[in-house]
């Protein structure tokens, strides 16, 4: 592959290697040289060995070749009639390199499947960059009133509160299975008889059990962890506004097998000892001190791989949770604290959108949107049934349990119901005073490529209609959903809107496609070897990932140069980015 002029200019300091066999007498041009971006791949494949005596591209351009030379051979002085002088190293534009005045430079952590270009901010970012290398005797005459050229409503930082949600947090001290359901003095009692009623929620569920797992009792066998669900109930108003009562210190965990003993989440299932199979403290998981209320379901034989089977398990678990919600709604207990969540239009700041790609290929690759109760099942719609088309939720609707995850198959990378209840990216974007988070778009990932294109193009139309000025796109899991994930980034980027991608890729989930807009990516892996490690919630989006994604989006919107990602996943880049932002070092799942 020969070099184009643009590529050539980027690589003047890189090694010069002939792309094809060349004969004596040739005057070397870019057309004769191999693309340095491919050197690592070629070296890995044993096709190329770079030489210490090798010259750089700028040293050989225009020089005459004195001997016939084979393809993929580094060019040395002995082959040429002479060597060009090296130009001095390019100086950074300022003392801080490519850092912007507003934020630190962080490096992309995932390389997309196609060559990524360098990003630049769109005109809509209302930012003028001036770089002056030398300046002498400058005089400027600026007309009075020029500052009014920008409409005041666009520059004035005003706010409009659209809706407010109050979360009343109640601490749970203990959970007991008893003869009645109640919540008093921090003790949650759940009527054991509720199971008889809950099992009637769906005839596919043949057996249901419940037990309480205290934090110190977690070395206990569990069937595959289908979901972790917070306990929250609407006390006033509807989803996203009013008052929601939330229990802290206890969560529900759903597990399931079929009548033959086959794990419901057969692929990458997480059955085993609970203390080894969940990343406690991650957003979608139980916290280290949480009491876990485990609901174990047995569903009809051979329905574990059909949509109706796992869904039945979720329905029955929700019937149990609803009994607790009914008590929680009316509790006279004093809340431990209150949290205010507000949907705010922040005028005068860039309008951004969070796009969450959720699975939509079938059983378990499905979610329930906008249920009647926080994180509930009844009243909601499944994204598969809706054709996986993009749906807009307000940040508050999501934070109020607007998603009940039927959870995809990869334990480490799936986003469980509790994840959405405290999604770090929504928290980071909604609370960021420099950004106006317009909403959260949920878009399903269908099976067939044409359907992927269809929903992705609808997303592009949405983003365009919203006149968004920035977007973050996330996906859970890996596989063919990366096709639409990259397509979404393309739909947004091709409209001149800065976009950042967030995904597990690492080693096992490397991107299979790419485009020129996928140049700013955040890696969520937390496994030392970069694998789906079957530990529930291990590599989901965590607060550090969210902070890096928001900073990268701001950098891109500001026009800070996005350097190309490393060719291979490297935890050291992520660690360095965390360090630059002053974030705690990420805990990585090790193996002993």
């Amino acid at each position, binding site marked *: 592959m020969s070099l184009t002029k643009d590529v050539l200019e980027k690589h003047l300091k890189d090694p010069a290697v002939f792309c094809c066999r060349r004969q004596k007498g040739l005057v070397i041009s870019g057309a004769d040289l191999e693309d340095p971006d491919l050197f690592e791949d070629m070296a890995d494949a044993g096709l190329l060995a770079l030489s210490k005596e090798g010259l750089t591209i700028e040293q050989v351009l225009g020089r005459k070749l004195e001997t016939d030379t084979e393809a993929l051979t580094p060019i040395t002085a002995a082959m040429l009639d002479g060597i060009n002088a090296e130009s001095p190293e390019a100086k950074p534009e300022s003392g801080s390199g490519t850092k912007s005045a507003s934020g630190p430079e962080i490096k992309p952590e995932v390389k997309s499947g196609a060559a990524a270009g360098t990003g630049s901010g769109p005109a809509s970012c209302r930012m003028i960059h001036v770089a002056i290398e030398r300046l002498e005797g400058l005089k400027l005459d600026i007309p009075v009133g020029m500052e009014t050229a920008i409409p005041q409503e666009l520059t004035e930082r005003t706010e409009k509160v659209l809706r407010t949600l109050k979360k009343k947090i109640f601490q749970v001290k203990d959970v007991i299975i008893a003869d009645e359901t109640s919540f008093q003095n921090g003790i949650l009692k759940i009527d054991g008889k509720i199971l008889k009623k809950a099992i009637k929620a769906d005839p596919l569920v043949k057996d249901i059990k419940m037990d309480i797992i205290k934090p110190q009792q977690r070395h206990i066998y569990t069937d595959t962890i289908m979901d972790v669900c917070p306990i929250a109930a609407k006390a006033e108003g509807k989803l996203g506004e009013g008052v929601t009562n939330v229990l802290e210190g206890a969560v529900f965990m759903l597990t399931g097998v079929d009548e033959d003993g086959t794990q419901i989440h057969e692929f990458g299932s997480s059955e085993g000892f609970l203390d*080894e199979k969940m990343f406690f403290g991650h957003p979608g998981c139980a916290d280290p001190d949480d009491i876990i209320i485990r609901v174990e379901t047995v569903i009809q034989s051979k329905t*574990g791989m059909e949509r109706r089977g796992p869904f039945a398990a979720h329905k029955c678990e929700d019937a149990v949770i609803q009994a607790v919600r009914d008590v929680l709604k009316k509790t006279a207990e004093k809340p431990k604290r209150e949290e205010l969540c507000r949907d705010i239009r922040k005028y005068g700041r860039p309008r951004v959108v969070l796009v969450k790609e959720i699975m939509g290929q079938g059983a378990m690759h499905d979610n329930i949107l906008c249920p009647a109760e926080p994180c509930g099942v009844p009243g909601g719609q499944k994204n598969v049934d809706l054709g996986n088309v993009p749906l807009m939720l307000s940040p508050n609707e999501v934070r109020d349990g607007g998603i009940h995850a039927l959870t995809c*198959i990869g334990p480490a990378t799936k986003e469980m119901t509790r994840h959405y209840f405290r999604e770090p990216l929504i928290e980071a974007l909604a609370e960021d005073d420099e950004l106006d988070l317009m909403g959260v778009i949920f878009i399903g990932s269908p099976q067939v*490529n044409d359907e992927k294109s269809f929903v992705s193009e609808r997303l592009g139309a949405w983003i365009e209609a919203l006149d968004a000025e920035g977007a973050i796109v996330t996906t859970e899991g890996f596989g*063919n959903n990366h096709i639409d994930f990259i397509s979404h980034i393309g739909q947004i980027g091709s409209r001149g809107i800065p976009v950042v991608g967030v995904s597990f890729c690492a080693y096992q989930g490397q991107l299979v496609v790419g485009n020129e807009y996928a140049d700013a990516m955040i890696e969520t892996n937390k496994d030392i070897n970069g694998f789906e490690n079957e530990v529930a919630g291990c590599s989901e989006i965590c607060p550090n990932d969210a902070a890096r994604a928001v900073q990268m989006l701001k950098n891109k919107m500001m026009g800070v140069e996005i350097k190309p990602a490393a060719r291979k996943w490297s935890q050291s880049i992520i660690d360095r980015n965390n360090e630059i932002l002053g974030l705690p070092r990420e805990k*990585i799942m*090790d*193996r002993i």
Partner: protein
Amino acid sequence: MKIELKPILTRGKIVQVNDTAVKVDIQGRLGVVTVPRRWVFTDVFLEQGQKVEFYFSYLQVLPEGRQNPVHKAGA
């Protein structure tokens, strides 16, 4: 002895499709592999009888020290 595993492009036939997975007979009667639907790239709806291709290699048993890893969250 450690042998380098080299995946080769292999073919197979879909023998079962459900809401979660596809089951594929590996060409040459070399076994059966079942993968999640998310692992299948396709321009058409998945159906029994469709031919697929994928990279596949011989298998090597891991040494004893790597047989039973225990996970822990480390710094």
